[in-house]
């Protein structure tokens, strides 16, 4: 052992007072790195915790993805579907043309096609099984039909108003649209949206509890270390900081895992959805999760992790004091 030889450097307290900002930054850097090392030192436990949290976050994401695609499917099937306007049988071609021009001026209408009784008959005759029966008819019983194509992205209210207006037109016998089932779909989507919000809230709470419990167990298992830190002059904030960073790491990694799972689900759905889109002649625009959400989930999860760790560490360290 060599003789003591105190270096001629300023006392510690003087030095730290001169560099409070860099000292604060170094404390945070040390705590962040230290908490990462702790997570890495028990890989199985850390990975399991992150997996549980990641799955909890992925579920509402997957549900949101499913819901947005159902909405898109609904749009493709319903809102932009052609409305068939059957005219009374006494309406002649000129009446049909006049009414078609009038309807084209209506808000929310993209185009109107006039289908004559003969064209209707030709379509029917091409269908298997109808041909013989149609030959037995003395005259063509089919009316003029106007095929009204609503504009893309038309709102449900505008579509309903259009159908009501068409029904009130003179010479119109019947209007066939998908309004009822579209309303049902909209109502179902509303329920689904609310369910996603509730699920997201519940799973966020689950994430909060998982992080909180993990931090609680960690603090309990490190009671001796906390005692030592306090004895050598660590403030409560210094003792708590690594646990807060642990919460942030757990949240961040689980958020990244949740996003990865959601992207994997998107990929798994890509092929069948593409086939479905082809069936609807490309009208079905099925999208993935928006980029802002992919970024927001890890950030929100990190904030949740921090919050869970903060709540529990404040309580647990007060008990340990």
């Amino acid at each position, binding site marked *: *052992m*060599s*003789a*003591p*030889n*105190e*270096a001629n*450097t300023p*006392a*510690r*307290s003087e*030095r*730290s007072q001169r*560099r*409070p900002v*860099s*000292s*604060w930054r*170094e*404390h945070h850097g*040390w705590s962040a790195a230290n908490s990462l090392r702790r997570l890495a*030192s028990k890989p199985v436990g850390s990975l399991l915790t992150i997996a549980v949290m990641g799955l909890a976050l992925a579920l509402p994401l997957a549900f949101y993805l499913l819901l947005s695609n159902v909405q898109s499917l609904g749009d493709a099937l319903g809102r932009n579907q052609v409305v068939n306007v059957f005219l009374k049988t006494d309406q002649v071609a000129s009446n049909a043309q006049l009414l078609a021009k009038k309807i084209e001026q209506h808000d929310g209408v993209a185009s109107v096609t006039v289908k004559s009784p003969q064209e209707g008959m030709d379509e029917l005759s091409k269908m298997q099984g109808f041909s013989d029966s149609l030959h037995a008819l003395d005259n063509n019983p089919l009316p003029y039909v106007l095929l009204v194509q609503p504009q893309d992205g038309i709102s449900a209210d505008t579509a309903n108003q259009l159908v009501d207006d068409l029904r009130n037109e003179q010479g119109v016998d019947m209007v066939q649209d998908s309004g009822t089932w579209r309303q049902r779909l909209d109502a179902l989507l509303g329920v689904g949206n609310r369910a996603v919000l509730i699920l997201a809230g519940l799973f966020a709470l689950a994430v909060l509890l998982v992080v909180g419990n993990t931090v609680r167990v960690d603090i309990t298992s490190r009671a*001796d*270390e906390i*005692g*030592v*830190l*306090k*004895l*050598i*002059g*660590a*403030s*409560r904030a*210094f003792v708590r900081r690594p646990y807060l960073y642990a919460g942030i790491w757990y949240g961040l990694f689980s958020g990244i895992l949740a996003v990865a799972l959601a992207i994997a689900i998107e990929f798994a759905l890509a092929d069948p959805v593409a086939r479905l889109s082809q069936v609807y002649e490309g009208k079905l625009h099925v999208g993935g999760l928006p980029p802002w959400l992919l970024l927001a989930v890890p950030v929100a999860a990190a904030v949740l992790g921090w919050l869970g760790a903060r709540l529990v560490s404040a309580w647990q360290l007060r008990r340990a004091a």
Partner: protein
Amino acid sequence: MGNAVIRFDQVSKRYEGGHEALSQLTFEVAKGEMAFVTGHSGAGKSTLLKLLALIERPSHGHISLDGQSLAKIGQSGIPKLRRNLGMVFQDHRLLMDRTVFANVELPLVIGGIAPLERGRRVRAALEKVGLLDYERQLPASLSTGEQQRVGIARAIVVKPTVLIADEPTGNLDPQLAVEIMGLFAEFQQIGTTVLVASHDLPLIKRIKKRVIVLDHGRLVADVAAEEVL
């Protein structure tokens, strides 16, 4: 004593349940002085050190440390006080999952010392206790005596004005115990005030420093260094 660093004035400590650990204790330790506090188990040695580190508060009386009244230090001021106080424990209190270097570095990290300066001071402290070659090892791979020296390095790395040690040689063989006490004596020589609680009378006699003897919480003898036989 005008240059007293540690001052106990009529200090008593009564724990919940009525046990009186210290009673009307009055003494001073001067700057750069080394003193032993001795007595049987339950004499109040550890309580005395706990009062100095503000682990406990006195029931009566007044304690000052380096001119500062401990009664005026609130809960939030305790960490700052402890950062300027070197503490050595019988059971070392090392973090077994950190290297020797990381253990000794810890008070400097807490104190906000820059990384380069930390490295320099940790190595200087490890050199003083003869463990410079062990900085990358985990404490578990060291002997008990070496672990105690790591604990001492951690205490002195902050350059404390006061170094307190609670039975620092309790788990060591006589030869190692003398070495450790020799280290404390060396710190005293550079101006650090050293207060060591120990019940090892033969060792205390061998070191020949001032001895404060407690019995059932009362000061029964205060023997100057030159009077130690």
